[in-house]
C-alpha cells in the first residue's frame, strides 16, 4: 500500500461521505428526515468526541503515562451516566432559547450580551486551533507510516487534507441558513464515521489480542510486566492530574463547540439523552478497553523509538496486514474528519453570528432601516461570513500544526484545547444554577481564567513562553489549569455578588435557572416597527418562501388572513427567538432593536422578574377573567333590559290601541242605550237607536273575534285542517261573502275562470278568511269611478299556487306599504273601514301558518296583493314558531282588564 493509493482511498471515502450527506440533506428537505431522526443516530453523532486524538493518541498516552489515558473517557462517562438529567436541562433550556452555539447560550443567559458572545467565540477559536492542528498532524503522521524510500509522502500533504476538510465543511455546513441550525447530512455522515472508527479500532484490538498475542491471558501478563517495568511499582496515579483531567474531559463534552453542537443544537428533543445516557458511555468503554492491550503489545514487539501514537497503525503494518492497516487509517481519518468538520461548522457559526454580523451591523446601521436594495444581501452575507470563518479556522489549525513543528505528542495538544474551552464551564454552570450570576461576573471570570490559561498553558504549548514554574510536587499542567479555573470561578462569584444584574439579565436568568419558557414581555405600547419590515428582514435571512410561510402561519394563529400578523408581544418574542435560531440571541436582539426601535427593558419587564411575578400574573388573569365575565353579564342584562323596555312600550301602545278600539263602540252603545231608557223617546228614534246599538255590538264582537284569532295564530295554537279543494270554488265563496258584507257599489270582477280550476291542498276555512279579507278591503278602499277587482291564479315554479287580487283604486303609498301588515295599522282614512285594523295582520299570520305568504305588489295600478300557497301546507314551521314568544295572547287578557279599569275611572 503506497501513500498515493491511501490518498486515493481517502478521497474515495470522503466522496462516499459527500454522497451520504447529500442524500440525507435531500431526504430531510423532502420531509423524509424522520426515519433518520433516531436516538441511535444522535448517540453515534456524539462520538465526534472521539477525534483522531483518541483514535491514535490514546494508545500513545497509555504507553507514556499508563492508565491516565482513562481520564479522557471517564469525564464524559461520568457526565453522561451520572448527570444526564443535568444535560437534559441544558438541552431543554438551550432549545427553548433556540441557542445556536455555546457562545450564544452564555451570551443569552447573561442578558444577550454581545461582548460575552464574542469573548466565548474567541476562546473557542483559540482552543480549537491546537485541536484542529492535532487532527491534521495525526493524518499526516498516519500517512507517513505508510511511506517507504520508494514511495515518499507527497509534499504538503497536510495542506491538501486541510483544504479537503474545509470544502466538506463549507458544502454541508453552509448550504443554507437553517432556522434551527441543524445539519442533517453532516449528522448522518458523522454517525457512519462513528461506526467506521469503532469497527477499525475493535478490529485492531482483536487482531492484537488473538493475532499477535496468545489471547487475553497473554495480554494481561504483558500488561503486568509492563506496569512493573514502567515505574518499578506499577503506574503512578497522580491525583491532581486525574482530577484535573476528568474535570476537563467532563467539561469538554459539554462546552467544546463541536460537542455542544451535536449534543444540543442537533438534538431534536431532550429525550434523546435517555438512550445516549447509557449508549454513549458504552461506546466510550468499547473504544477504551482495547487501548491498553494495543499499547503493551506494541511496546513489546515494535522497535524501540517507534512513535507510540502510531502503534494502532504500525502493528498491522509490521505483520503485513495491509488491508487492516488501511481500515485503521480510514478509521483515524474518519475521526479527524468528523471532528474538523463539526468544529468548523460550530465555530464558523459562532464567528459569523458573534463577530462578523455585529460588526457589519455597527458599520451599516442605516442599511436595515432603509428599504431593501438587495433583498438577499443579509442571508448571503451570513453564509459567506461562515465560509470565510471555516477557511480561517482550518487555516489557523494548519498554521499551528506547522508552528508546533509537528513533533508534540498528540495528547498534549488535546489537553491544551480542553483546558482552554473549560474556562467557559464556570459561567455555564453558574448561569444554569445560580440566578445571582451576572454578566460582569461572567465576563470577569472568563477573561481572568482565559488570561491565566493563555500565559501558563497556551503560549507555552506553542513554545512562545517557558513552562511555568510550579511549587515542588505539583504537576505544572494540572496546577496551571486548576489555578485558571479557580481564579475564573472566584472572579465570577465575587463580582456577581457585588454587582446588580441588569433587567434583561434578570429576565434571562429567571428563564434559564427555572427552565421556564421566556415570557413574551417586551416593552409596553405599540412597537414602532411595521410587520412589513420584519417580513423583509426575515426574507433576507431565511429566503422569501420560508419567511412568508412563517408569517402566514403566525397570522393564521391570530385568526387573520394574509402574511402580516399583528405585532403582539407574543409574536415579537417568537420572532426574535426564531431569529436567534439563525443569528444567535445577542444579534437577534440587536436586529430587533435596530429594526423596531425596541430598546431597553421596560417597567413591565421588571415586574416580570419580581419574585411574585408569576403568581401576581395568575391573580391578575383571574381578575381579568372575572371582570370580563361581569362585563358580559352586564351587557346581557343591558340588552335584555332594552328588549324589555321596547316590549313594554309596544305593550303600552298595543293596550292603548285595543282600549280605543273597544271603547269607541262601547261609547255609542252606552249613549244610545241611555236614550232608549228614556220613556218619552219617539218610536222611530227608538228603532234607529236600537239598530245603532246592534251594529256597534257587532263591531265589538268582530274586534274580539279578531283579537282571539290573532292570539291563537300568534301563539301557534291554531289547528290545521287540511284538505284538497278546487281554488275556483273557494274564490266563488269568498266573492259571495265579501259581496254580502259590502256596500252597494257595483264592482266589475275580472277573472280567468279556466285558470282558477286548480286543486290546492290547504286549510279551506283559513284560506277563505284571507281571500274574503283582501276582497273586502278592495271593495272598501277602492274609490275609482268604475271600480273593478281583478283576480289572477297560476301555479308557481315550485309547484305552489299564486293568487293575485288587485283593484283599480289609488293603491297604497310607498311609505305605508310596509305598515299595512302591522296590527292596528289602519291607515288614516276618513271613510272608516269599520274594522280594528287587524285584518291584514291576521292574513299575514294565517298565510305563515299555511306555509305560504301574502305580500303587497307595488306598481300594479291599484292595490294588489299576492297570496302564495306552498304545494302542501307546512304546519311544522308554524309549530316551530311556538317558541317565539309573542306578547299578544297574554295581552288580550290584560287589555280586557284595562278597559274595565279605565271605564271605572280607576
Amino acid at each position: 500500500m503506497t501513500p498515493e493509493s491511501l490518498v486515493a482511498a481517502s478521497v474515495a471515502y470522503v466522496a462516499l461521505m459527500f454522497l451520504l450527506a447529500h442524500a440525507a440533506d435531500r431526504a430531510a428537505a423532502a420531509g423524509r428526515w424522520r426515519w433518520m431522526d433516531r436516538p441511535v443516530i444522535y448517540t453515534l453523532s456524539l462520538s465526534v468526541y472521539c477525534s483522531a486524538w483518541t483514535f491514535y493518541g490514546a494508545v500513545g498516552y497509555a504507553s507514556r503515562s499508563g492508565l491516565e489515558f482513562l481520564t479522557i473517557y471517564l469525564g464524559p462517562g461520568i457526565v453522561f451516566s451520572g448527570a444526564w438529567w443535568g444535560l437534559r436541562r441544558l438541552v431543554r433550556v438551550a432549545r427553548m432559547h433556540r441557542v445556536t452555539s455555546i457562545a450564544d447560550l452564555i451570551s443569552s443567559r447573561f442578558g444577550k450580551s454581545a461582548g460575552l458572545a464574542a469573548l466565548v467565540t474567541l476562546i473557542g477559536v483559540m482552543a480549537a486551533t491546537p485541536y484542529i492542528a492535532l487532527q491534521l498532524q495525526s493524518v499526516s503522521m498516519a500517512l507517513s507510516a505508510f511511506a517507504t524510500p520508494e514511495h515518499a509522502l507527497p509534499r504538503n500533504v497536510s495542506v491538501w487534507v486541510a483544504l479537503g476538510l474545509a470544502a466538506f465543511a463549507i458544502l454541508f455546513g453552509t448550504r443554507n441558513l437553517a432556522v434551527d441550525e441543524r445539519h442533517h447530512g453532516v449528522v448522518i455522515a458523522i454517525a457512519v464515521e462513528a461506526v467506521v472508527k469503532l469497527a477499525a479500532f475493535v478490529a485492531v484490538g482483536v487482531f492484537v489480542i488473538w493475532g499477535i498475542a496468545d489471547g487475553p491471558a497473554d495480554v494481561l501478563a504483558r500488561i503486568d510486566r509492563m506496569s512493573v517495568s514502567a515505574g518499578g511499582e506499577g503506574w503512578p496515579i497522580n491525583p491532581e492530574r486525574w482530577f484535573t483531567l476528568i474535570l476537563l474531559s467532563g467539561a469538554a463534552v459539554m462546552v467544546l463547540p463541536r460537542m455542544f453542537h451535536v449534543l444540543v443544537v442537533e438534538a431534536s428533543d431532550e429525550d434523546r439523552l435517555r438512550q445516549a445516557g447509557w449508549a454513549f458511555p458504552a461506546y466510550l468503554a468499547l473504544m477504551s478497553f482495547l487501548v491498553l492491550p494495543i499499547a503493551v503489545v506494541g511496546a513489546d514487539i515494535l522497535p524501540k523509538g517507534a512513535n507510540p501514537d502510531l502503534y494502532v497503525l504500525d502493528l498491522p503494518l509490521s505483520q503485513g496486514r495491509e488491508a487492516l492497516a488501511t481500515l485503521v487509517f480510514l478509521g483515524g481519518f474518519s475521526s479527524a474528519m468528523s471532528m474538523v468538520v463539526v468544529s468548523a461548522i460550530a465555530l464558523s457559526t459562532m464567528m459569523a453570528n458573534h463577530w462578523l454580523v455585529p460588526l457589519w451591523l455597527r458599520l451599516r446601521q442605516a442599511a436595515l432601516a432603509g428599504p431593501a436594495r438587495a433583498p438577499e444581501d443579509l442571508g448571503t452575507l451570513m453564509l459567506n461570513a461562515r465560509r470565510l470563518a471555516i477557511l480561517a479556522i482550518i487555516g489557523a489549525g494548519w498554521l499551528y500544526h506547522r508552528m508546533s513543528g509537528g513533533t508534540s505528542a498528540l495528547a498534549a495538544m488535546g489537553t491544551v484545547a480542553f483546558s482552554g474551552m473549560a474556562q467557559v464551564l464556570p459561567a455555564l454552570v453558574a448561569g444554569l444554577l445560580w440566578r445571582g450570576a451576572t454578566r460582569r461576573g461572567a465576563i470577569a471570570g472568563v477573561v481572568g481564567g482565559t488570561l491565566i490559561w493563555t500565559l501558563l498553558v497556551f503560549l507555552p504549548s506553542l513554545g512562545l513562553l517557558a513552562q511555568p514554574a510550579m511549587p515542588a510536587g505539583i504537576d505544572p499542567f494540572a496546577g496551571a489549569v486548576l489555578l485558571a479555573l479557580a481564579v475564573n470561578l472566584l472572579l465570577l462569584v465575587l463580582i456577581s455578588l457585588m454587582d446588580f444584574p441588569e433587567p434583561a439579565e434578570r429576565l434571562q436568568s429567571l428563564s434559564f435557572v427555572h427552565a421556564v419558557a421566556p415570557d413574551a414581555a417586551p416593552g409596553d405600547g405599540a412597537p414602532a416597527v411595521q410587520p412589513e419590515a420584519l417580513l423583509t428582514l426575515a426574507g433576507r435571512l431565511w429566503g422569501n418562501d420560508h419567511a412568508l410561510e412563517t408569517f402566514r402561519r403566525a397570522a393564521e394563529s391570530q385568526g387573520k388572513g394574509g402574511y402580516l400578523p399583528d405585532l403582539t408581544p407574543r409574536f415579537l418574542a417568537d420572532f426574535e427567538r426564531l431569529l436567534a435560531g439563525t443569528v444567535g440571541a445577542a444579534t437577534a436582539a440587536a436586529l430587533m432593536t435596530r429594526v423596531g426601535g425596541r430598546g431597553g427593558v421596560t417597567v413591565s419587564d421588571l415586574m416580570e422578574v419580581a419574585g411574585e411575578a408569576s403568581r401576581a400574573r395568575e391573580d391578575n388573569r383571574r381578575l381579568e377573567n372575572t371582570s370580563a365575565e361581569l362585563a358580559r353579564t352586564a351587557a346581557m342584562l343591558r340588552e335584555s333590559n332594552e328588549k324589555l323596555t321596547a316590549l313594554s312600550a309596544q305593550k303600552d301602545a298595543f293596550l292603548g290601541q285595543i282600549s280605543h278600539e273597544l271603547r269607541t263602540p262601547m261609547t255609542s252603545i252606552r249613549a244610545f242605550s241611555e236614550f232608549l231608557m228614556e220613556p218619552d223617546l219617539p218610536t222611530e228614534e227608538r228603532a234607529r237607536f236600537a239598530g245603532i246599538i246592534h251594529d256597534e255590538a257587532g263591531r265589538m264582537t268582530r274586534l274580539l273575534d279578531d283579537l282571539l284569532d290573532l292570539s291563537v295564530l300568534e301563539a301557534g295554537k291554531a289547528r290545521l285542517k287540511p284538505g284538497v279543494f278546487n281554488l275556483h270554488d273557494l274564490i266563488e265563496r269568498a266573492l259571495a261573502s265579501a259581496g254580502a258584507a259590502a256596500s252597494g257599489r257595483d264592482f266589475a270582477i275580472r277573472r280567468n275562470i279556466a285558470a282558477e280550476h286548480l286543486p290546492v291542498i290547504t286549510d279551506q276555512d283559513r284560506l277563505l278568511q284571507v281571500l274574503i279579507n283582501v276582497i273586502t278591503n278592495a271593495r272598501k278602499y277602492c274609490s275609482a269611478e268604475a271600480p273593478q277587482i281583478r283576480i289572477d291564479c297560476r301555479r308557481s315554479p315550485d309547484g305552489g299556487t299564486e293568487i293575485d287580487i288587485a283593484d283599480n283604486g289609488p293603491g297604497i303609498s310607498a311609505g305605508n306599504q310596509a305598515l299595512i301588515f302591522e296590527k292596528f295599522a289602519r291607515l288614516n282614512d276618513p271613510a272608516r273601514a269599520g274594522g280594528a285594523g287587524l285584518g291584514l295582520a291576521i292574513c299575514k299570520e294565517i298565510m305563515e301558518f299555511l306555509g305560504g305568504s301574502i305580500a303587497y305588489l307595488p306598481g300594479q295600478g291599484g292595490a294588489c296583493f299576492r297570496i302564495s300557497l306552498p304545494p302542501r301546507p307546512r304546519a311544522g314551521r308554524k309549530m316551530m314558531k311556538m317558541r317565539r314568544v309573542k306578547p299578544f295572547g297574554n295581552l288580550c287578557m290584560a287589555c280586557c282588564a284595562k278597559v274595565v279599569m279605565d271605564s271605572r275611572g280607576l
Partner: protein
Amino acid sequence: MSVDVLLIEDEPSIAEAVRFILTRDGWGCEQWPEGTGALERIRALAPRMLILDLMLPGRSGAEILADLRADPALAALPVLLLSARGTANLPPGADRVLPKPFANADLRAVVRELLEQA
C-alpha cells in the same frame, strides 16, 4: 242660529249621539269628522265651545288643541276633550276631559257649565 258647540269626532254613531243630546238641550251644534281642516272650521264657525276627540284621522286632537292655545284669537275657547285612551298622559290645555264611554248626564252637565262660563 249661532253655533254653540262644534264637535270634532270621526265616529259617526258617537257624533250622532252627542248631537242628539245637545240639540235636545237647545244648543246649536255642528260636527266636523276629521283632524284635517278642523282649525279652519273652528275659525269659520266661531263656536262658543269645542268638543274634541283625541284620536282623529289626519291631525290628532292633541295637535289641534296645541294650535288652538297658541292662537290668541282662539286661546280662550273652552274645550271639552273626549278620550278613548283613559285619562293618563293627556295633552295640556283642555278645560274638561270626559273618558269614553261617558254617561249622557255628565256630558250635558259639562257642556252647560262650559257654555255658561263662556
